[in-house]
């Protein structure tokens, strides 16, 4: 019955992670985004549904569930409908390799893959396929431009992210996320690798299409970008994908650079959540601080600044790891 037990564990783990991400990360994340935006603009934000507006997103979801399901007549129905599943699924696949904490019996992770970092690099860039499908399937000019810009963004910021992941893997000598967290027992990698951390953070913001890199859904020119034609619950599923991806990126940054679940006194899971939300706050802070890039500036910034700097950073790190430390 060993395999039955494993199967049950996999099922339960999946359901827990999906519900946790959907309810805690995404629903609370949307509310947090609105509250922080309001705070930075001296407004009040959502306030009336539940105590201090805590149930606002839940009410919105229930509202969206009752909305009519509209598929434009000229759209490609198959691509249009499947994009809605691919975007959130690709975002949630990232969570397989993220260690949330540790217990007496071992680390709290869905599966500690021995190529965890490479797996993360692969799944985090899957989202763009869904976005391209949405953009193309809608047969809408705004959506198409949004989808193609998203591909440009992925093509450009995938490389700095990859180079930062390799740098950290080199420091830890492993691609498993649990080993990487264990390697930060004495010193968080953010101290040893401040440049890689900064580049990872910038490229992560670009990968999840947030301001200042939100050309994919630039409201002032593209209406809503690739999901202009999506309404009701389908729109909500795209939101799930976007916020899921944002939290996954922040969680990976915590795992790679901020020591994952490690911290004194408080329980490990709590430390992980504190660090995660601190990074999410930085993402939202950046959103209300910087104006949007132009697309050529965005591409140039990565190719002419981030990539050379991260290659140099990798070489310097390799020199210290291999030649000096041994």
């Amino acid at each position: 019955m060993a395999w039955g037990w494993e199967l049950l564990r996999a099922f339960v783990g999946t359901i827990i992670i999906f519900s946790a991400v959907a309810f805690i990360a995404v629903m609370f994340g949307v509310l947090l985004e609105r509250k922080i935006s309001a705070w930075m603009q001296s407004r009040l934000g959502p306030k009336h549904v539940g105590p201090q507006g805590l149930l606002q997103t839940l009410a919105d979801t229930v509202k969206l569930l009752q909305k009519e399901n509209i598929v434009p007549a000229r759209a490609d129905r198959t691509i249009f409908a499947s994009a809605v599943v691919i975007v959130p699924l690709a975002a949630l696949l990232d969570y397989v390799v993220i260690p949330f904490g540790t217990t007496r019996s071992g680390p709290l992770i869905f599966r500690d893959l021995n190529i965890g970092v490479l797996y993360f690099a692969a799944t985090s860039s899957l989202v763009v396929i869904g976005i391209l499908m949405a953009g193309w399937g809608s047969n809408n000019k705004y959506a198409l431009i949004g989808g193609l810009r998203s591909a440009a963004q992925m093509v450009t910021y995938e490389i700095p992210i990859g180079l930062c992941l390799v740098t950290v893997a080199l420091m830890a000598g492993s691609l498993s996320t649990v080993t990487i967290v264990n390697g930060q027992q004495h010193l968080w990698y953010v101290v040893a690798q401040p440049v890689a951390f900064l580049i990872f953070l910038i490229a992560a913001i670009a990968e999840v299409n947030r301001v200042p890199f939100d050309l994919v859904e630039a409201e002032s020119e593209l209406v809503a970008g690739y999901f202009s034609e999506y309404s009701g619950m389908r729109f909500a599923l795209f939101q799930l994908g976007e916020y899921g991806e944002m939290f996954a990126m922040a969680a990976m940054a915590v795992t790679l650079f901020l020591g994952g679940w490690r911290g004194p006194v408080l329980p490990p899971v709590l430390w992980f959540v504190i660090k995660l939300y601190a990074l999410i706050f930085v993402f939202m802070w950046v959103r209300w601080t910087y104006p949007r890039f132009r697309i050529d500036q965005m591409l140039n910034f990565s190719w002419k600044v981030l990539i050379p700097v991260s290659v140099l950073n990798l070489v310097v790190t390799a020199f210290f790891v291999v030649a000096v430390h041994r």
Partner: protein
Amino acid sequence: MLLDWGYVAIFALVGAAMVSLPLLIIWLISPRSDYPQKFETYESGVPTIGQAWSQFHVRYYLFSLVFVVFDVEIIYLYPWAVVARSLGQLAFWEMLTFLVILVLGLLYAWRRGALEWV
């Protein structure tokens, strides 16, 4: 090893089912009231002109060609990063040669104007 990917497969399958669940719910409970204007493609309120599926200038195609080279490079770097410590000096110099050749390629593309928005 196989067990690991079995877990990932179950995650993907159960996940796809869970993501599809709201779609099933809206298919069951959403109201329907059809009239042709509702299914028009959105174009800021004016009648839609033409298709979006037309020839489109993908202005970053040169970037994507350079991207392919660099992405493959990074794939080679992952296994190197894991064993570099045990291989020692040799690993460093060999990878340095590899990276220098690639950076020369990037510089060449840069000088030839491939990294400009066309």
